[in-house]
């Protein structure tokens, strides 16, 4: 394997990393190869001494994955603590109000996927019953009533497809919105720190 092939493979294996981080890993591996070549090793040999690009990428990614979160508020003096305690009736109420508004917003937004799912299930039920019962109605009641029954069933089937489509679109959207908000709230009070 040539140096370029190795680095291309590494780049590909690291494609999910943000660019600055990818650059650091990439430069590290390149330096290791080039220092070996400078040391007198042939290019192929220098590359062969390293672990495979996939193993290398795994090490980089695992290292990156080792982050945890630390609770951190900008409490840096006694004064801040006193102000925080004295101001609690004000900021506590505002914080609570803000969280409640957020919660209300999510409940409201969550209704859309919820309604879609409920519609899907109930329309499925209507479609099944109507379509399967329509031949009996045609025979035992009247042909016209049976055809209407069948039509209702087919309409329910159409509605079902629309509702299912709506659910499949709104559920991921809702999930993403919840995740983003949770991440934002966490970033207000917690700081990402290295594991070690």
């Amino acid at each position, binding site marked *: 394997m040539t140096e370029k092939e190795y680095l291309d493979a590494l780049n590909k294996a690291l494609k999910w990393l943000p660019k600055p981080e990818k650059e650091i890993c990439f430069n*590290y*591996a390149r*330096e*290791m190869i080039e*220092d070996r070549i400078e040391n007198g090793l042939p290019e192929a040999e220098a590359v062969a001494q390293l672990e495979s690009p996939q193993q290398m990428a795994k*090490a980089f990614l695992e*290292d990156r994955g*080792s982050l945890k979160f630390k609770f951190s508020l900008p409490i840096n003096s006694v004064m801040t603590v006193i102000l925080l305690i004295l101001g609690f009736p004000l900021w506590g109420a505002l914080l609570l109000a803000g969280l409640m508004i957020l919660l209300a917003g999510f409940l409201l937004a969550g209704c859309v996927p919820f309604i879609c799912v409920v519609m899907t299930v109930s329309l499925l039920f209507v479609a099944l019953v109507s379509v399967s019962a329509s031949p009996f109605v045609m025979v035992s009641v009247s042909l016209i009533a049976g055809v209407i029954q069948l039509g209702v069933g087919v309409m329910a089937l159409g509605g079902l497809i629309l509702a299912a489509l709506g659910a499949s679109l709104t559920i991921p959207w809702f999930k993403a919105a919840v995740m983003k908000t949770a991440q934002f709230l966490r970033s207000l009070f917690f700081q990402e720190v*290295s594991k*070690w």
Partner: protein
Amino acid sequence: MDSQLKKGLLEICVLAALAKQDSYGYQIIKDVSQVIEISESTLYPILKRLEASRDLETYSVEHNSRLRKYYRLTDSGRRHIADFLDDWKSVMAVIDFIKGEVHHD
């Protein structure tokens, strides 16, 4: 060797490899691998960790028309080595005790 123990030892070995003079990745690998097995993928997280804990600093130097990253030991890094050597004295005492007891039988 136990992997936790090895991890701790590697960290100190990397710091020790910088004690005499600043060094770069490949040189550190060459120096450290004389006594303990180390690969690029194990060195990388160690260097990152030691930099994060300010035991070492980095700077880049132009070398043969490319940049080479150098690592420099800080005072905190030197203290880290000294602490390790201090701790190790009590570990040696334990080892001597274990050896003495085993040979006694």
